[in-house]
C-alpha cells in the first residue's frame, strides 16, 4: 500500500512504474476554445493524493465537494429577450483547479468511472436543494490492470481531470458561458477522438492519454466540476474508458478489469442501472427522522382532533342510497377488466400478459385485494399521479426563456413526494413552503411565475382551488360576482405566501368597467393589504406545538390549510381521488365547491375522516375505493350520465378513457419502444444560464415531456422526434403550456385523436415491426398462429379474442404465416445525423437544414425488420393498427 509520503518519494526518484506519455486536451470545432490560452498557471494545482487503504475494493468511491457558503441562484426573470445578445446572470464562481470546492457533502459507491447523474442534495425537510456553484465530483478507485500498453479516454461536459496516484493523466477544459447563435454546426462523429465509440454528446470534450500498466494496484481519481458562474449544474456524460494494446475501449470499473463495453448498449444499460441506484440513495438522503417525528406528532394530533364521522364502508353509504331510491347497481366487472382498469388507474400502464394470466388463473377470493396491494406498492403510483398534480398545481417549466407563468420544474419534487407517499398534509405543507431548488426540481420552483405582476397571488389562487376547492380566479381583478370572495381575501392569502403586506398592482384591477356593471372593485391600486387568513369558518387557532416558525405567515397558511379540525382539506383530496376513479366527484366541480351540493355528504365526511385519521395517507383511501364494489362495477351509460352532483347515486362508475399520459405510456410500453425523443433542451452544450434555458433530460415516461412550443417558428429549434409524441399527448388533452391550473381535462373526442394513431407518425412508429418492437419478437417466436393472436389480444386489450375476432385475425395472418421468417440477420439501425444542433448554432442556416432533414427521417418512420417477409409483416402491422385504434383500447373497461 502506498501512503502519500511514499508516493512523493517514488515520484521524485522516478521509480514509479507507469509512464504518462501524452496528455492531450481536445476541443476541436470550437474555434474559440481551441484558440484560448492554456489553463492559467495558477490553475495547475495537483490532483489530490488518495491512498489505496481508504478506498473500497471493487468499487469506485464517489465524493461530492462544495464551496462553503453555497450560492443559490435567484428566481427566473425575463429580462432581455434579444436572442442575439448574451444574457446576464451572475450566480456562482468560475470553476478552477486552483480553488477546488473543499467541503465534503456526500459520499457513496459506484461500480465504474461512468456517470450520467449524481445524487441529489436535500434539506432537513427532504426537498432537493442546489449545491454550491460549482461543486466537484471526485471518484476514486484502486485499479489493477494487467500489464500492457493502454490508452485512456476521458470524456466530460465540464472541466475534468484523471490522475493516477496523484499524477495527472488527462485534462479537459472548463465549461465557459459563451454566447453564440450562428456558430458552425459541429459534426460529433468527426469531433470525437475515437471513431466507433458512442457518439460524443454535444458540447462534450475528450482527452486521451497513453499509459503503461504494470499489473500492480494504483489509485485512479476522476474529478469533474459541475456548474459554475452562469453555468447550469449539469453533469453531462462523464466517463473514463481504457483500451489495452489497441483493443476495444471498455469503461473503467472500480476493479479495473471487469467493466462494461463502451458502446451504445453498454452506456444505456449502465445509465439505467445508475438511475435505479441513485433513486434508492436519494430516497435515503431525503429521510430525516426529526422531520418524520414532527409529522408523526402532527398525525397523532390529527387523530385526536378529527371531527367524528360515523360509517363502515363506502358500499354501505352507496348501497343505502341505492336501496332508498330502488336503483339497481351495475354488475361487478370481470376479472380481466378489473385488472386492466386498476392497473391503469394506479400505475398508469397496462397489465402485462403474465399479470393477466396469473390473475385469471388465481382462484383465491382475495385476489382483487392482493392485486390492489401489489399495485399500490408499485413506484408506478408516482408516475400515475405526477401528471395530475402538474395540471392541478400548474407546473409549467419552459425549455427556452420565460413566457407567461412559467414555474420551475417542480415535477422532480412531485415525483419524489409521490414515490415517498408523503402524508398529504405534509405534501401540501412542503409544496407551499416553497423551499429548495427553484430551477432544478425543488418546490421553490412552484413559487415562480414569470411575467406575472404578483406571482404569489397566482399561487394563492392555485392552492385555494387545489386544496380548498375555492376558485378565486375572479378575485384577482375584482370581487368575485358568483363566489363568496372579495378581492381582499385573495390578497390577504397572497400576503401570507409572500410573507409581506401586498401592494395592489394597478394591473390586477379590472379596467373599463361599465357603470352598470355589477362587478365590484373593492380595492384601489397601491393599497396595502396585510397578510391574514381570510376564511372565517376555517379559522381555528393552530394546535399547540404545530407551528415551528412563529411569525412565518407562509407556515401559518399551511398549518391552517391542513388543520385537522376542519375537514375541508381532507374532503377536497378524497373527492379528487374519487373523481379520477369513478368519473364524477362526490362534489363537482372538484376545484370549486361554492355552488355545488355533494352527492353523498356522509360518505364525503367519512372518507375525509379516514384520510385524517390514517396519517393523511392517500393510499389508504385509494385502497378503500379500489376495494369497494362501487369502484369494481361495470361502467354504464347510466353511470356516465351528466347530472348535478346532488342527484348522483354511483350505481355504476362513469365510462372513462385513458388520459394522454396513460395512453402514450401504455402504447409505447406495450410495443417495447422508447420515445426516442431528443434531450429536452435547446442548449445541450450547457453554455447558457438557467434563467434562459432548461434541460429536462430525455423523457422516459410521458409526464417527463415539456412544451416544445416553437414561438419563434425556427426549424433549428424544433425537436422532430419528441414532437411526434407531444402531438399525440396534446391531441388527447395534455397541455403544452400549463399557465393556469386545471383539475379536469378536456376529454372530448376529436378527429385528430384517432387520426394521429391511424396515420400519424407516432401511430406508424407504434405499429411498425422494427427490430426494437416487442411485437417483432412475438412474431419471430415459433408458435401456432392462434397462440400469437391470443397474445396480441392479451397484450393490447388484456383479454383473449372473441370467437369471431379469432376467425378474422386468423384469416388475416394465415397467408404466409408458415414462411414468414426470412432467415436474414436483423436490420442495422439507420444511421443518425451526427451534427450537433444547439442554441449556439441555431441561426446558422445549416442548422435549419439539418433539422428539416431529421424531420423527413422521422416522417419516414422506423425501418422494418429484415427478419419477416414484407407481405406478412404488413398483415401483422395491420392487426396491430386495428387493435390500437379500437375504442376498446382507449376506454377503461
Amino acid at each position, binding site marked *: 500500500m502506498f501512503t502519500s509520503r511514499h508516493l512523493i518519494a517514488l515520484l521524485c526518484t522516478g521509480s514509479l512504474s507507469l509512464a504518462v506519455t501524452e496528455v492531450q486536451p481536445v476541443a476541436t470545432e470550437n474555434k474559440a476554445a481551441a484558440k484560448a490560452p492554456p489553463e492559467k498557471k495558477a490553475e495547475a494545482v495537483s490532483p489530490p493524493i488518495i491512498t489505496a487503504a481508504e478506498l473500497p475494493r471493487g468499487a469506485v468511491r464517489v465524493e461530492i465537494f462544495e464551496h462553503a457558503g453555497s450560492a443559490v441562484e435567484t428566481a427566473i426573470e425575463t429580462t432581455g*429577450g434579444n*436572442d*442575439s445578445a448574451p444574457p446576464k446572470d451572475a450566480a456562482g464562481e468560475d470553476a478552477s483547479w486552483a480553488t477546488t470546492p473543499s467541503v465534503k457533502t456526500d459520499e457513496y459507491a459506484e461500480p465504474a468511472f461512468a456517470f450520467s447523474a449524481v445524487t441529489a442534495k436535500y434539506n432537513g425537510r427532504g426537498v432537493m436543494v442546489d449545491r454550491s456553484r460549482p461543486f466537484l465530483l471526485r471518484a476514486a478507485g484502486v485499479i489493477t490492470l494487467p500489464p500492457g500498453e493502454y490508452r485512456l479516454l476521458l470524456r466530460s461536459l465540464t472541466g475534468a481531470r484523471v490522475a493516477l496516484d496523484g499524477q495527472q493523466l488527462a485534462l479537459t477544459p472548463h465549461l465557459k458561458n459563451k454566447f453564440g447563435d*450562428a456558430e458552425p454546426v459541429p459534426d460529433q462523429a468527426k469531433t470525437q477522438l475515437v471513431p466507433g465509440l458512442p457518439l460524443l454528446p454535444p458540447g462534450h470534450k475528450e482527452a486521451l492519454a497513453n499509459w503503461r500498466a504494470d499489473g500492480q494496484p494504483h489509485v485512479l481519481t476522476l474529478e469533474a466540476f459541475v456548474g459554475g458562474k452562469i453555468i447550469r449544474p449539469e453533469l453531462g456524460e462523464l466517463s473514463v474508458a481504457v483500451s489495452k494494446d489497441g483493443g476495444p475501449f471498455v469503461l473503467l470499473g472500480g476493479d479495473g478489469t471487469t467493466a462494461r463495453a463502451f458502446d451504445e448498449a453498454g452506456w444505456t444499460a449502465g445509465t439505467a442501472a445508475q438511475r435505479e441506484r441513485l433513486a434508492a440513495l436519494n430516497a435515503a438522503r431525503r429521510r430525516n427522522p426529526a422531520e418524520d417525528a414532527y409529522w408523526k406528532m402532527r398525525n397523532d394530533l390529527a387523530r385526536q382532533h378529527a371531527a367524528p364521522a360515523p360509517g363502515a364502508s363506502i358500499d354501505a353509504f352507496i348501497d343505502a342510497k341505492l336501496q332508498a331510491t330502488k336503483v339497481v347497481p351495475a354488475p361487478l366487472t370481470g376479472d380481466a377488466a378489473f385488472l386492466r382498469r386498476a392497473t391503469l388507474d394506479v400505475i398508469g400502464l397496462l397489465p402485462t400478459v403474465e399479470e393477466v394470466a396469473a390473475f385469471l388463473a388465481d382462484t383465491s377470493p382475495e385476489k382483487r385485494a392482493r392485486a390492489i396491494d401489489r399495485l399500490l406498492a408499485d413506484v408506478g403510483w408516482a408516475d400515475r399521479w405526477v401528471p395530475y398534480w402538474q395540471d392541478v398545481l400548474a407546473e409549467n417549466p419552459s425549455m427556452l*426563456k420565460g*413566457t*407567461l407563468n412559467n414555474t420551475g420544474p417542480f415535477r422532480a419534487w412531485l415525483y419524489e413526494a409521490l414515490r415517498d407517499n408523503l402524508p398529504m398534509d405534509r405534501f401540501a405543507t412542503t409544496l407551499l413552503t416553497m423551499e429548495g431548488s427553484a430551477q432544478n426540481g425543488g418546490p421553490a420552483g412552484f413559487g415562480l411565475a414569470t411575467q406575472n*405582476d404578483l406571482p404569489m397571488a397566482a399561487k394563492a389562487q392555485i392552492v385555494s382551488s387545489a386544496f380548498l376547492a375555492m376558485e378565486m380566479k375572479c378575485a384577482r381583478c375584482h*370581487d*368575485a360576482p*358568483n*363566489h*363568496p370572495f372579495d378581492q381582499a381575501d385573495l390578497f390577504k392569502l397572497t400576503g401570507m405566501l409572500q410573507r409581506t403586506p401586498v401592494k395592489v398592482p394597478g394591473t390586477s384591477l*379590472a379596467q373599463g*368597467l*361599465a357603470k*352598470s*356593471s*355589477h362587478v365590484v372593485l373593492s380595492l384601489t391600486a397601491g393599497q396595502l393589504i396585510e397578510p391574514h387568513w381570510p376564511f*372565517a*369558518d376555517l379559522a381555528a387557532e393552530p394546535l399547540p406545538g404545530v407551528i415551528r416558525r412563529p411569525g412565518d405567515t407562509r407556515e401559518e397558511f399551511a398549518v391552517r390549510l391542513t388543520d385537522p379540525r*376542519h375537514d375541508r382539506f381532507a374532503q377536497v383530496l378524497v373527492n379528487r381521488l374519487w373523481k379520477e376513479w369513478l368519473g364524477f366527484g362526490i362534489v363537482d366541480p372538484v376545484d370549486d365547491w*361554492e355552488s355545488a351540493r355533494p352527492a353523498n355528504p356522509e360518505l364525503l365526511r367519512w372518507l375525509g375522516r379516514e384520510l385524517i385519521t390514517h396519517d393523511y395517507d392517500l393510499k389508504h383511501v385509494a385502497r378503500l375505493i379500489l376495494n369497494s364494489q362501487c369502484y369494481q362495477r361495470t361502467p*354504464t*351509460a347510466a353511470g*356516465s350520465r351528466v347530472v348535478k352532483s346532488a342527484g348522483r347515486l354511483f350505481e355504476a362508475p362513469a365510462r372513462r378513457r385513458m388520459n394522454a399520459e396513460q395512453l402514450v405510456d401504455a402504447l409505447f410500453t406495450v410495443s417495447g419502444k422508447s420515445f426516442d425523443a431528443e434531450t429536452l433542451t435547446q442548449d445541450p452544450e450547457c453554455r447558457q444560464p438557467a434563467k434562459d434555458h432548461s434541460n429536462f433530460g430525455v423523457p422516459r415516461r410521458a409526464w417527463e415531456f415539456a412544451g416544445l412550443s416553437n*414561438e*419563434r*417558428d425556427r*426549424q*433549428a*429549434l424544433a425537436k422532430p422526434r419528441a414532437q411526434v409524441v407531444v402531438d399525440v399527448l396534446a*391531441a388527447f388533452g395534455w397541455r403544452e*403550456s400549463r399557465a*393556469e391550473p386545471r383539475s379536469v381535462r*378536456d376529454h*372530448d*373526442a*376529436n*378527429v*385528430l*385523436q*384517432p*387520426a394521429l394513431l*391511424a*396515420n400519424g407518425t407516432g401511430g406508424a412508429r407504434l405499429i411498425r415491426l422494427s427490430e426494437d418492437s416487442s411485437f417483432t419478437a412475438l412474431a419471430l417466436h415459433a408458435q401456432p398462429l392462434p397462440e400469437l393472436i391470443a397474445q396480441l389480444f392479451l397484450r393490447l386489450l388484456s383479454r383473449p379474442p*372473441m370467437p*369471431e*375476432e379469432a376467425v*378474422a385475425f386468423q384469416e*388475416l395472418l394465415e397467408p404466409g404465416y408458415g414462411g414468414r421468417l426470412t432467415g436474414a440477420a436483423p436490420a442495422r439501425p439507420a444511421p443518425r445525423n451526427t451534427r450537433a444542433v444547439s442554441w449556439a448554432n441555431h*441561426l446558422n*442556416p445549416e*442548422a435549419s437544414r439539418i433539422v428539416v432533414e431529421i424531420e423527413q427521417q422521422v416522417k419516414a*418512420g422506423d425501418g422494418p425488420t429484415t427478419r419477416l417477409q414484407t407481405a406478412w409483416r404488413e398483415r401483422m402491422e395491420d392487426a396491430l393498427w*386495428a*387493435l390500437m385504434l*379500437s*375504442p*376498446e383500447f382507449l376506454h377503461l373497461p
Partner: protein
Amino acid sequence: MTPDLTRRDFLTRAALAAGALSLPSFARAADPKPALPLGKAEHCLFIWLGGGMAQIDTFDPKPTRGDGKKQAGSYYASIDTAIPGAQVCEHLPRVAKMFDRFVPVRSLNHNVIDEHAAATNRMHTGRPVSGSVVYPSIGSIVAHQRKAAADGVPPYVVIGYPSATRGPGFLGPKAGYVYLTDTASGPAGLTRPPEITLERAARREALLGLVRNGFVQRNAEDRIVRDYDEAIAESFKLQGGDFMRAFELGEEPEALRAEYGDEFGQRCLLGRRLIQRGVRFVEVGFNLNFVNGAGWDTHNAAQEQQHELIQRLDRGLAVLVGDLEKQHLLDKTLVVVATEFGRPGGFDAGGGRGHYAKCFSGVLAGGGLRTGQVVGQTDDYAMNITAEPVGVPDFFATIFATLGIDPAKNLMDGDRPVPITDKGQPIAKLFA
C-alpha cells in the same frame, strides 16, 4: 365545517352577485363609440413573418439611406407603388405594382420590446398577458366565431410549427389548429402514409370495423364510446375527402405553381386551396430560416441576406393576391402580413438591426376593404408615429370587423366574459 360547504359570512353578497350573472356588460368599453358596419370577408390568410420584419427596409421606407454602420436609414432604395405617394423598398416590385389592393399599416405599436415569444404572443392574442387568463390566438377566435365554412374541414390550419401562442387558450381544443410544417407532407395525422395502398387501407378498416363494432355494440348506450367511434369515422372521411385534396398542389397548373415559386409561395398557394375548401383561417409561417438562418430576426450579419427574404415575400404575396383576384376570392379573403415587432432605423454593431416595437408595419390586402390607402405616418427613420396610430387591439378589431365578427363582443372563459379585443376600434376609413 357544515356539509353545505359555504362560509356564512359571504352568503349575503353571494346571493346579491348571483343576479349579476346574466349581465354580460362587464368590461365593455364604458362609452362605446357607434358601431361600424361589419365587413363581409369569409376567410383570412395570416402570413406570419417570425423574427420581426424591419419596416424601414420593407413597407415604410425612408429617403435617408443607411450604411449598415453609423448612418441610420433604409438599407435599400425605394420605389413608387400603385398608391400615389406611397413607396416601398426596391425588393417589393411586384407588390408595388398592385399596391392599390393593399393597405400598409405603418403605425402599429406595442410595448413588448425584447422577447420574441412574448411579442409573438401579443401579436397573436392582441393583448398583454394576464396572470389569470390564457387568451386565445386570433386564428382560434376566428375558428370559434365563424367555424369552418364547409363540413369535414378544420376551421383553422397552421403552416408552421405548433406553439402555445397559436393555440386556443381558454376557448379549448375545439378552437385549436391542425398544423403542418411543410407543404410536401400534409398535416400531421391526416395524411395516409404513401405505403398504405387503398387495398391495404380497406383491409385495415375492415379489421378495425370488426373489433370496433363488437365493443361499440357491447356499449351501445355509451355516449363517450360513441363519440370516439364517430371521431374515427370522421377521421377516415376527412382523410379520403375533399379537404385532403387541398394538399395535392400538383392539381394546379404547372405555370401557376412555378409562378408562386419557393416553399413560401407554395404555402400561399396551399393557403388559397385550403380556404377554397372551407378553412376559415390559415396562418402561413414564413420561416425559411435556411435562407439566412435568422429569418426576419435580422441582427448582425443576417441583414446581408434580408433582401432575399423580401424578394421571396414579394413574389409569394403578389402572386397570391393576384391569384385570389383572378379566382374572385380577393373580396372575401382578407390577407394579413404580420410580425411580432419591427426594427429600428439604426444598425447594431454587426451591421444588422435590433428589435423595435414602438412603431412598426403590418399589411392588409383584399377582404372587401377600401384598399389603396396608407394607414399611419411615421418620422424620418420610421421609429415614431406622427399620425393615425394603430394599436394592436385596433389591428385585431379591424381584422375581426372585416370578417364580420363584432369586435366589441365578449367571449366566455367559463362563466367569465372576456372582451374579444382589448377595447380595439376598427380602422374606420377602411370600411365602406
